[in-house]
């Protein structure tokens, strides 16, 4: 696959960037996320993080089950501030 392939579509992160980070020893998904914003977009990493985890496993020789995914942050799907704000009186 071409290194120019996009891994994280929300933040435009390429496979090459991921490979460079792994080569530099950044193999913790939290740190990869911090370094290149991969998984910080509206999809919450649903598309990219499993791919990145797979690359970390492949290149480090670790079993995929040992590559920890980053902490999942709410909300589950994007929600407008206006909608959230209106709910304030009903709690």
């Amino acid at each position, binding site marked *: 696959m071409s290194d120019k392939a996009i891994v994280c579509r929300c933040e435009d992160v390429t496979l090459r960037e991921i490979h460079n980070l792994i080569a530099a020893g950044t193999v*913790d998904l*939290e*740190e990869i996320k*911090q*370094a290149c*914003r991969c998984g*910080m*977009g*509206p999809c*919450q990493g649903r598309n990219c993080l499993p791919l990145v985890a797979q690359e970390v496993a492949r290149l480090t020789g670790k079993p995929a089950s040992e590559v920890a995914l980053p*902490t999942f*942050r*709410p*909300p589950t799907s*994007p*929600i*407008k*501030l*206006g*909608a*959230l*704000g*209106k*709910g*304030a009186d009903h*709690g």
Partner: protein
Amino acid sequence: MARGVDAVVIGGGVVGCSIAYHLAKQGLGKVVLLEKGYLASGATGRCGAGVRLQWGTRANCLLSRESVRMYEQLPELLDTPGDIEFKQNGYLLLAYTDKMVEQFRKNLTLQNSLNIPAYWVTPSEALSIVPHLNIQGLLGATFCPQDGHCNPFAVTKLYAQAARRLGVDIRTHCEVTDILTENGRIKAVRTNTGDIATPLVVNAAGGYAQTVGRMAGVELPIFPKRHEILVTEPVEPLLGPMVMSFYHNLYCQQSPHGSFIMGMGRECEPEGINHQASWQFLREMAATVTALLPRLAGLNVIRQWAGVYDMSPDRQPILGDSALIQGFFTAAGFSGHGFMIAPMVGRLMAELITGKPTSLPVDMFDAGRFQRNELFIEPSVV
């Protein structure tokens, strides 16, 4: 036990990395930095990323003024290439009560005497700075064009890279479990991977600073307290400066990336390490910010998280040594404003530790002030 080192810095946040860098630069010798997670995994990487000079005490004004000067040219200063995404679009601090107006006027006199170019703005002038601000009830505001934003991950990484180049041994995923002392002196640091002999420990453990202090038998009045933040989807530039309101206890800024970062303090928050994000925060934050900045109602929230402030009784850090244990230094208790003063804190701590004259007065940050009842409360925090 492994061969001894000259200093062990505990905590791989921006403060610990800045201290480690400055210690190496001062030529202290072999410096090790220990971080139980990864770099910036605690308060640094969870913070609101704001940088301001508008403070209510002389000490904080000076610390932040000098730190901002360093942020303005950090890659050059550290001789390390990198982009810390520093932008200076100002902070607009809103005043809603007569008491706030009075405090802000006092702050301005102090700030201006220290060459900080903050100034008073009327509600209509505030509107020209933030065109979609709801000015209902607003009595006025202060604005300082040199305040701004910078990327905490990038800053920490830059300090870490510069420190490593000077020979600092940075160990992540290495947890300190005990500190060994003998006859009132530091002897070694015990970790999950073995003991490190050292005569000097710097406690830069943020929300864990009290725990680390107790390992050495030093009691520090530093308490972790959760603060929550949310971030929206990135959009075109809408908001230049940080908008901050002590009345609403909130801050909100658009980052250079385009996303809005905002947070709120809550009086009722209990003490303790708590990294859980809450639904209550999401709701309160949304209701308050959309009342203040109605245009934000159309933005999607995409992520929320929590971090802890390392609170001290006067909301000022403890910087200095311990009267009890020789070789035990603390740089913690930042109470929510550690990131923005980290460059200068690193330099001052290194000067203190190596016995050099300090570039700014630091006596007032000494841990003994609480026993002496010499608190100097910072009035301007969220």
